[in-house]
């Protein structure tokens, strides 16, 4: 059907604007970037972040700090008793935020009760179920005959896992949770309340954590196998050397050196949240929001969701194959691609031909 693509360079320089009647060698293909930007601004963006960790690790505060507004569950549904729920609950709150004309629908999904019981077996299950339920909802919308113009995206893009600042190593709960969930969602582990660790303790802790993750085959974001090219790998390697980020959250402002900054005031000093000499909050914020947000969403959509979809479509139907087996063996799951619209028996045509030619 089409010949092989030929390369043409139209105008290696000269980005140009719309008024360039004299520059006749400029076609204007790069104007598509502006068109895309306009479309994106008009549509707005969606982001769904889940926070997981024991109570008291500062999850709600960190969310408020990240988005510089009261987006956490506690700010929206204040709980006067501060009780710890008996089972894990999944609570999600959505917010419309806007910055410089860019509108975003942010959903923060909180998991109070995680890791707080005496027996925490299977405490990841409700969370796994929730994540898979979102994939399921999206899949159902996608396979509709009459589809919406824009399918609402409720899939969890990123799960921030809070590690308590023990300074020693990861607990079995941490390992178990991250091992299971790193397969279905992007996990960003952070060391919570890092102001209780000195810099040396912090570095040692981080190294231990990295080694343990590696030893257990847990691939947290940014996953090594999803690096697209060498540029990506370079950037992501640098990030991988720094995770987990040691963070401190705060939504209170203090006066330091004549400026008002977010921080935690103690008797021995004020910890500045956005000072990278004090904690790594800024790195986390940059990763999540300013540089890798689109990438996080892409990996959720094109890898985690697709994995779920493949599994779901395969398990529902053994017969979902392109060629019906001659002697079907019960129980085999074939995950070949299937073709909905073409004749699937390869023999039909041959027989007809034989019949007609011999008689």
């Amino acid at each position, binding site marked *: 059907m089409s010949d092989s693509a030929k390369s043409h360079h139209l105008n290696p320089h000269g980005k140009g604007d719309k008024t360039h009647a004299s520059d006749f060698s400029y076609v204007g293909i790069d104007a598509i970037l502006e068109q895309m930007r306009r479309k994106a601004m008009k549509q707005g963006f969606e982001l769904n972040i889940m926070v997981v960790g024991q109570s008291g690790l500062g999850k709600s505060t960190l969310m408020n700090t990240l988005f510089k507004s009261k987006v956490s569950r506690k700010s929206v549904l204040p709980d006067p008793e501060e009780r710890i729920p008996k089972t894990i609950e999944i609570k999600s709150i959505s917010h419309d*935020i806007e910055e410089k004309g860019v509108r975003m629908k942010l959903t923060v999904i909180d998991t109070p009760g995680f890791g707080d019981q005496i027996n925490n077996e299977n405490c990841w299950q409700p969370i796994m179920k929730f994540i898979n339920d*979102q994939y399921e909802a999206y899949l159902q919308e996608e396979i509709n005959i009459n589809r919406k113009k824009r399918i609402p995206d409720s899939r969890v893009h990123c799960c921030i896992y809070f590690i308590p600042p023990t300074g020693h190593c990861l607990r079995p709960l941490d390992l178990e949770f991250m091992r299971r969930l790193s397969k279905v969602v992007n996990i960003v582990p952070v060391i919570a309340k890092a102001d209780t660790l000195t810099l040396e303790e912090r570095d040692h802790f981080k190294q231990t954590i990295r080694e343990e993750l590696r030893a257990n085959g847990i691939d947290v974001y940014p996953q090594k196998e999803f690096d697209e090219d060498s540029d990506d790998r370079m950037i992501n390697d640098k990030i991988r050397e720094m995770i987990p980020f040691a963070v401190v959250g705060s939504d209170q402002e203090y006066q330091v050196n004549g400026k008002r900054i977010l921080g935690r005031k103690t008797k021995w000093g004020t910890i500045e949240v956005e000072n990278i000499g004090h904690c790594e909050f800024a790195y986390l914020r940059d990763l999540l929001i300013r540089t890798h947000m689109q990438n996080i969403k892409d990996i959720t959509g094109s890898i985690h969701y697709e994995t779920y979809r493949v599994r779901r479509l*395969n398990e529902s139907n053994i017969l979902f194959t392109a060629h019906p087996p001659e002697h079907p063996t019960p129980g085999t799951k074939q995950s070949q691609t299937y073709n909905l619209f073409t004749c699937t028996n390869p023999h039909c045509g041959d027989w007809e031909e034989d019949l007609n030619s011999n008689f």
Partner: protein
Amino acid sequence: FIKNFIDHYSGEGARAVPLAGHVGFDSMPDQLVNKSVNHGFCFNILCVGETGLGKSTLMDTLFNTKFEGEPTQHNQPGVTLKSNTYELQESNVRLKLTVVNTVGFGDQINKEDSYKSIVEFIDAQFEAYLQEELKIKRTLHSYHDTRIHACLYFIAPTGHSLKSLDLVTMKKLDSKVNIIPIVAKSDAISKSELAKFKIKITSELVSNGVQIYQFPTDDESVAEINSTMNSHLPFAVVGSTEEVKIGNKMVKARQYPWGTVQVENENHCDFVKLREMLIRVNMEDLREQTHTRHYELYRRCKLEEMGFKDTDPDSKPFSLQETYEAKRNEFMGELQKKEEEMRQMFVQRVKEKEAELKEAEKELHEKFDRLKKLHQDEKKKLEEKKKSLDDELNTFKQKKMAAELLLTQAQQAGGSTTLKRDKERKK
């Protein structure tokens, strides 16, 4: 629980909160654009029009490149579609451009079926995308999208009205692709004739219910220019890749003895308008309309044709799957039935042939028997003849012996002369 969740997401639960400082997600559009730049873009244009209307030249002019190809002959037996893909680059934007040409359109004596190959081609691209989308293991991210984003319909510059071929073709295409009608080789029409021609064309399109692509007017930044341009449709274009010196500049133009038509002069033709609309302002919208409107329509029709229905809000199961399963079982059942039929027919034919052969065999046997009998009869006759011949011979021998005996006796009795005479007589 999921239902509640989806409600949440339709905007009912979201509250607007003010930000106390700079968060940084205003970089999202940049992140999105960067990703697209790394990935590259693709754009597919279909040029429909009679041979010789300047389709290839216009493409060359629009994209400032000499695409390959020779002018086609006029003796094609039917309409075929030829597509070529080119990789263009401008600053940091890489575009995979596919130009599809209708070869032989309008050249046949009977043009009733001309539109069919075009419709089939467009549908085939939708089909390919649909199949990829329905695969279990799919790679939509790296899929080369071949769906037609824009169809430039070239109208011959007669100055009167649209040809019936044009109306029929455009009517068949308007629900499948974004149609942008253009008046080709418009330097053949004078300005006043052109204005009348455009009005006539527009009114004919409207009265025949042909939906051409409207440049979008919902985004304020481009609403004004788009709505102005909408009123200039169809664009009257002139294409040229030759350059002529006007004043102290080299411009793309066509030189005639009576003057020079400058391609990029808006007083001379609408080429600049076309380029502006097609490429610089609405390329993304053309792609989006193709995906969200034309492709969805195709998909919906195709799936409904197969018998799929949507679940109603109350039922839970994976309905597409179940319907597919049911359809598939039905299909397999039919297939088996067909197999059975074929098998029976095969057996039947074998029997018939066998019977035929048996008949033939019998005939042969009979023939053989007849021949054999004939042969035997012959043989008998011959033997009888032989026998009678032998008998004659024997009789003759006997007579001969008797005669000889008599002769010997006669010789012994008397004179030899009488014997001789008798012998001679006997002989």
